[in-house]
């Protein structure tokens, strides 16, 4: 049962990486100065008041006790209570995922809609006008930071043109359109750098495949250039594109931290940033652990997809 064996090994590896990450995250934040109680009480708090709040929050417990307490909780599905907000961390994260997941999906959809046609078109006639445009687009897109694109979009599109929301999130309770409206510009800000990379990968991958024999055969059998490209070259060029999509998930997450802050979206990125500056240790731990989980799962899924897309790779993995 080599395949089952491999799956078990993969899951065990994933758990090991997560366990190590959890400890590293906990230890690193522990080493930083300041704690939640100090921040909650402000500059004038007396030492005995601080001690009282620390005891109330459980911050006076030793390092390993708190770490193991948290770990046991997580394994039982209990992420603990936020020191600062005094609400279950799972609820906080759940609320924020309702913003970040649609944002990431929207951004990825946008970047695919831009990158696939542009990349394929550019590959169709290398050195042509579209190819030059695509090359210019990907150079600029890769060079500009997404938070800066976000600022430009707020100034130019939201305030200048009065189109779309300039920031904030009305909540899904306000209706589908108002919520989506608030996500459009941040998604564009995330999609531009992402699509720039994808355009480049699509172009080079398609160019590589176009010169393969099977495409030439398809052309020789009378298929038009465009049909040969879309029917035969593109499906075979998907592997590097999907790999790149998987690799970009960490960038999407780190980008979301900045872009969510620029657009004041109450997403997971904003939560991570805020909790870190407020030393809400337990929230930071859980959020970063979730980030680690997403990245690891994405990599595993991409690996699995290889086999589906290219049956030749099945036995080799």
């Amino acid at each position: 049962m080599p395949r089952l064996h491999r799956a078990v090994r993969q899951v065990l590896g994933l758990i090991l990486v997560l366990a190590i990450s959890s400890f590293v995250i906990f230890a690193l934040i522990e080493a930083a100065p300041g704690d939640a109680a100090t921040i909650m009480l402000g500059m004038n708090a007396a030492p005995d008041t601080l001690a009282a709040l620390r005891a109330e929050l459980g911050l006076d417990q030793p390092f390993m006790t708190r770490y193991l307490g948290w770990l046991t909780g997580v394994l039982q599905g209990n992420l603990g209570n936020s020191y600062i907000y005094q609400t279950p961390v799972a609820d906080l994260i759940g609320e924020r995922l309702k913003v970040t997941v649609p944002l990431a999906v929207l951004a990825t959809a946008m970047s695919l809609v831009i990158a696939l046609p542009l990349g394929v078109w550019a590959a169709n006639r290398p050195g042509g006008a579209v190819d030059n445009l695509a090359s210019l687009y990907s150079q600029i897109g890769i060079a500009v930071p997404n938070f800066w694109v976000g600022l430009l979009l707020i100034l130019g599109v939201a305030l200048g043109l009065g189109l779309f929301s300039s920031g904030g999130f009305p909540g899904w309770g306000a209706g589908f359109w108002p919520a989506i409206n608030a996500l459009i510009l941040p998604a564009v800000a995330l999609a531009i750098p992402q699509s720039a990379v994808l355009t480049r990968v699509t172009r080079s991958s398609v160019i590589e495949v176009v010169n393969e024999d099977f495409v030439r055969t398809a052309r020789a059998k009378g298929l038009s250039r465009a049909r040969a490209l879309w029917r035969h070259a593109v499906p075979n060029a998907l592997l590097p594109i999907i790999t790149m999509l998987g690799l970009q998930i960490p960038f999407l997450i780190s980008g979301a931290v900045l872009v969510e802050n620029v657009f004041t979206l109450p997403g997971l990125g904003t939560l991570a940033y805020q909790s870190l500056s407020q030393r809400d240790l337990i929230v930071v731990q859980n959020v970063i652990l979730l980030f680690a989980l997403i990245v690891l799962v994405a990599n595993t899924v991409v690996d699995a997809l290889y086999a589906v897309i290219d049956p030749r790779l099945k036995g080799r993995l």
Partner: protein
Amino acid sequence: MPFALRHLAKSVSVAALCAAAPFAALAAGEVTFIQPVEPTGLDPTQDSPVAAGQVTWQNVFEGLVTIDRNAEIQPQLAESWEISEDGLTYTFHLRDGVTYHNGAAFDANVAKFSFDKLLGPDSTNGQKALYAAVTSVDVVDDSTLTMTLSAPNSDLLYWLGFPAAVIVEPTSAATNATAPVGTGPFKVDEWRMGDRVIMSAFDGYWGGRPALDTVTARFIADPQAQVAALRSGQANVIAELGAPELFAQFTSDANFTAHAGAGEMEVVAGMNNARPPFDDARVRQALMMSIDRSALVEVVTSGLGTPIGAHFSPASPFYEDLTGVYTYDPEGAKALLAEAGYGDGFTFTFTVPNRTYAQRSAEIMQAFFQQVGVTANIEIADFPSAWVTQVMTGRDFDMTIIGHAEPLDINIYARHPYYFNYEDANFDATIAAISAATTPEARAEGYQAAQEIIASTVPALFLYSNPKLGVWSAGLEGVWENGPVPSNDMTDVRWAE
């Protein structure tokens, strides 16, 4: 953006602006205000008193007395009070017919519970020290409460008007941080953490239903984003704009009211008075003389701040202009440094919190210090976490810089320990005399004397008082223009007819 695209964007935006009102304004009866810092909880008796108070103080929670927009003490849940001759007993006559948002009634027993919680050994109220003079709180009858003090404290009434002393009710006290229940004109409907707090008018308010139906507090740290929210109609009030350079665009815009009010935050560069060379008053005085405060104010606050000479802002009734005690005089500073034995200057570490105003000020000061031969090595400390640990509680620093936002906090120089490590028996005696003062005149004189002492001994470099830069939609009335206390009181705010 390439030129052609920019041109297109410009003409489209002009067209959009010509089309009637491109931004949907919020409905009448609703106001959204922006504050930069989200509170860590909504209970001002426990959580970060300034930020929590800015959302819920006056709007949701009320105290025995209150501080009005002119910094004066006014009755609130107490209709009147008497102070005994010796200043040791306060008798409060409480208002009848006050109910909490959860239906519970307010009376003397509730008030006693609230103060016992504040003063008790398990108290997590960060401002507990302000009320330390109170030894017991007793119920005389349902509408009469007495407070007994160990020593007279002329500031006590003022502190009772502060967010930290709001009256909470026993059954809801434990959950006020997330589900606050008060006696105020608005009740909290929802807190979307990381984003906003939504409040609505409380029909049972003893003072009559407020004009606004809904008040929303939104938390936006970045000044650019604050301006974007205001301009796009998603918010109506920026109570305190963080970037003075963005303020000018509103002063000539008919769609907005822009007011540079007097704030309560004094920006001072505290020195470690226990560490050489700052243990020598002449060095501190020389450094004060090396800085041109007007130039600093011009750069850091776009000229909107006010130079100060002691730890009081012009917003305070006790303010005295002491900027003339040490004026800008680099030659005089050099002479004084030479007298103190530092003719060749010295080098020190300037621990600066990562706040824009602090970093900008520090860089300008560094250049001024250079002119008198003193080298400041700037080190940035993450605020609040690292700064509070290292400077505030650890007192491990040479010089730092921070805005002190608490009103009437000149007594920090008499607090031992406090991060300045300042010791001056004369000053301590003056502060003690203020506490013991039994007449308003004696209290005012005491505060003047205290200012004069620190203006001449310079425990910290007194730089400027920060303006409260408020911007709100035209047609909105009743917004506080000055900031004598940290508040976004929406009780009297209304849209003009």
